[in-house]
């Protein structure tokens, strides 16, 4: 009977090892995913969010964006170069448009084209309602480029496209 304890023990050991690997964020992929998660949190506005909490949330742009970075949106008007301070004010303006909004990154694919550089492809999903009561549910292809410095991974470029581009 004793031998049957090996199976649950092995399962528990593997689960613990896997959890340690992923939760400790040791892999570079996990760190990049964390940056994307922070970006989504910045763009998310919940009904109970007060102004102070929102200001604190979006003031952290310098932790995820490089000194200068590019935004490229197909058929968009926000194309151009930005710095983290400009991004903070743009985020404040964007959040002001919505009553509530949730932004999520799905199906993240990360590649490392060269040393200290990374690229993430994912589906950006936005669900929310604007101040004038209009509901929005949109999904786009998002491509993010990253550069690694001593302080971690920083976004250098964001390109947003239609999932099916006619």
């Amino acid at each position, binding site marked *: 009977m004793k031998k049957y304890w090996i199976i649950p023990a092995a399962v528990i050991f593997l689960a613990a090892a896997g959890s340690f690997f992923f939760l400790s964020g040791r892999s570079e992929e996990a760190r990049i995913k964390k940056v994307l998660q922070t970006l989504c949190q910045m763009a998310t506005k919940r009904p109970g969010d007060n102004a102070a909490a929102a200001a604190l949330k979006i003031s952290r742009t310098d932790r995820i964006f490089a000194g200068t970075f590019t935004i490229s949106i197909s058929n968009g008007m926000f194309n151009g170069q930005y710095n983290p301070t400009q991004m903070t004010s743009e985020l404040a303006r964007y959040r002001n448009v919505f009553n509530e909004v949730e932004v999520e990154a*799905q*199906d993240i*694919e990360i590649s490392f084209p060269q040393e200290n550089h990374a690229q993430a*492809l994912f*589906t950006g*999903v936005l669900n929310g309602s604007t101040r004038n009561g209009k509901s929005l549910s949109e*999904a786009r*292809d998002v491509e993010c480029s990253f550069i690694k410095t001593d302080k971690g991974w920083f976004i250098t470029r964001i390109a947003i496209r*239609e*999932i*099916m*581009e*006619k």
Partner: protein
Amino acid sequence: MFSLTALWNRIVHLHRSDDDTAAATFAEFFFPRMKKGFFLRMAVVAVVAAVVCKWVLIPCFIDGESMMPTFPSRGFTFCWTGKYLFRDPARGDVVIVKYVDKVFFLKRIVALPGDVVQFRQGVLYVNGVPQKEPYVRYVSNWNTRPVKISPGHCFVVGDNRSQYIGRHRFGQIRISRIVGAPLF
């Protein structure tokens, strides 16, 4: 008088008999004894079914007219994810494309990376050559600008080109969005 208790007693009685009559086999199959082995088998079946439905044969409800008449506007199929494990998607393949979580599109690949695609009066041109598409049965008057397909992308469109061009979702997608093909 018929009661559930009487039925249960009957089932228990059948189980207690050691014979292999049809009635006993029937009772064992439809009313198995709640023993450790039964729960273990149930757990294995549940895990295998969950794995298969999540990663191998994803059940999909079809809701939309974009692939008519090849696929009905309402129907059911499975997405066979193994289709492109050992070969690349090709022109003419019907594929299932992931949009967001739990939302997929059923489309046909008409062009591959490097091709130039255009619709002129409803006729599909690939690299300037009009394509014969026997699966397209409805009349179309679509006109689009020529589009060159980027590396790592392909061009997908539904078979029902009679829909208003603004309503029909088609275009260039990342090949990595293709999750498989319909099983039937």
